[in-house]
């Protein structure tokens, strides 16, 4: 992986400034970042932005096309779609961040242990990772969510646990390449304990690769949450989520197609933005593209 070669020097302020300068030149990545910031702000300030309650039903305004009053139209229960999109951003962003945190919290320590300690610890961790990666991502997430029971929290746990092996493998690979560096040997020969070498000298150097992968994984986590909610395993009605909105929209496709357009467009643009940002960050960290 190209990112590995950026690892040796611990990133400090000057390097972050240089990284930001390189990232800023990539217009697509920047556009992605701007869109993500807008979605995050919309999620935080949802009650201020939305003029309607996302749950309040209005049987006099069922399946209305977009108007000046209802910008994105109304759904099959007369609820304002714009309000549901804005509040739905909360479920998507929350699911993305929390499931990614779970994946990192499991993946990084195990990857660090496997790569740094080696031996039978590495062998056992790697075998479990291989086995988990043999199950297609969505199938494992569906099975976990099904056995845990359908809810937004359980879907976040399911996605996080399913994504964890990817981070174990990535961290392990990065640690293996950093471990061979002279400064790690120097840190060891100075008498630093293993945990200190692992956390103070190795971890900071594998962070750039992890951050790039985490950005791309956020995109995958948001899609997965939407997929699970679409299947009825994530956010439960009547609470809004982009995935579950698409599920109900399917039923009125022929007479109210706008119900399906907005939530899908939001998932697409948000996932695209994270992918653009992740790609841009990877290029900005790649020494060959400097």
């Amino acid at each position, binding site marked *: 992986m190209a990112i590995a070669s950026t690892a040796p020097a611990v990133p400090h302020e000057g390097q972050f400034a240089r990284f930001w300068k390189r990232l800023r030149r990539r217009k697509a990545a920047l556009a992605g970042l701007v869109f993500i910031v807008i979605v995050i702000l919309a999620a935080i300030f949802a009650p201020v932005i939305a003029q309607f309650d996302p749950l309040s039903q209005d049987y006099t305004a069922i399946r209305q096309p977009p108007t000046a009053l209802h910008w994105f139209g109304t759904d099959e229960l007369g609820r304002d779609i714009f309000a549901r999109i804005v509040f739905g951003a909360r479920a998507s962003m929350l699911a993305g961040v929390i499931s990614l945190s779970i994946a990192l919290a499991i993946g990084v320590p195990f990857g660090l242990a496997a790569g740094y300690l080696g031996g039978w610890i590495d062998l056992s961790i790697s*075998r*479990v990772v*291989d*086995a*988990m990666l*043999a*199950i*297609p*991502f*969505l*199938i*494992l997430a*569906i*099975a*976990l969510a*099904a*056995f*845990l*029971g359908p809810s937004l929290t359980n879907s976040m746990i399911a996605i996080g646990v399913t994504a964890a092996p990817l981070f174990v493998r990535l961290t392990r690979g990065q640690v293996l390449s950093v471990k061979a560096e002279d400064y790690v040997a120097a840190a060891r020969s100075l008498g630093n304990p293993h945990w200190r070498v692992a956390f103070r000298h190795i971890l900071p150097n594998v962070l750039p690769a992890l951050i790039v992968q985490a950005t791309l994984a956020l*995109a995958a986590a948001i*899609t997965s949450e*939407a*997929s699970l909610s*679409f*299947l*009825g*395993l994530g956010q439960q009605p009547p609470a809004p989520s982009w*995935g579950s909105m*698409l599920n109900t*929209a*399917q039923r009125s*496709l*022929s007479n109210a*197609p706008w119900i*399906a*357009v907005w*939530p*899908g*467009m939001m*998932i*697409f643009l948000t*996932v*695209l933005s994270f*992918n*653009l940002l992740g*790609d841009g960050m990877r290029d900005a960290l790649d020494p060959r593209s400097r």
Partner: protein
Amino acid sequence: MTRLIARRLIELIPTLLILSVIIFLLQRLLPGDPAIALAGDDNDPELLEQIRKQYNLDQPLPIQYLSWIGGVLHGDLGNSMRLGRPVLDLILDRLPVTLQLAVMAMLFALVVGLTAGIISAIKQGTIWDYLANIVALAGISLPNFWMGIMMILFFSVMLGWLPASGYVSPAEDLQRSLLSLLMPAIVLGSGIAGVIMRHTRSAMLQALESDYVRTARAKGLFESRVVIRHAMRNALTPVITLGALEFGGLLGGAVLTEQIFNIPGFGKLIVDAVYNRDYAVVQGVVLVTAIVYVGMSLLADIGYVLANPRLRE
């Protein structure tokens, strides 16, 4: 070669063993008494007793695992609580449908991904390269359930060109069968087409900058011959193995695609089982997909070695 395959097969044993433990333990995630959960809505004490016996729930966990894996090795994946049929039969019934869908999706992904990747590498820095990259990224970022719904809206509801849902077996009517899976295959294959395009592009760019391509050009060969005979042949080997690896992932994507287009395949089986809390079926589907995936990775490995004379030694 035989030694390599034998070595890879031996290496697979611990992976498959751990895999079986993980899938077995899924059942332990059920809150409360698993017998009650497995029985679904039926709380008949006799049925509960029967389930406890059938799954050895009154035995310690290792014994339960051994009896489960013993059954699995003999092709017994348990019975569907709802349909009252062996899980393996249900899976074998549905597998051909999903395989047909996956093969069509992979063909679409290969044709589109390879063509776009090669063109964008040859025309690097032009509008074509730019366009191909945008389309690839869009393909990767488009949630396939939304793409499916939008395609149904345009091609079925508005234009009336293609059937919105349902499946026709190729044995019954080949043309209608292909038509019924056309939209689902495009939806399922679009993400992989994007991945294949990106890999093809970077492999082709690397090949076009290599010494052997420079030599071929220096000999005065036509550019088309340089690209097709020299660069492409070398660049495409890793891409084809990537395709084999991604094929397993298609089974995961098929879950959503089959749900949207109402196709009675493997993915629909697991979703229906989830809705009906038919846990033995869920476990069985996870196990079979994982085995197919492991098998495809093995084929990809072997294919890679076969295509790389230097690794064959």
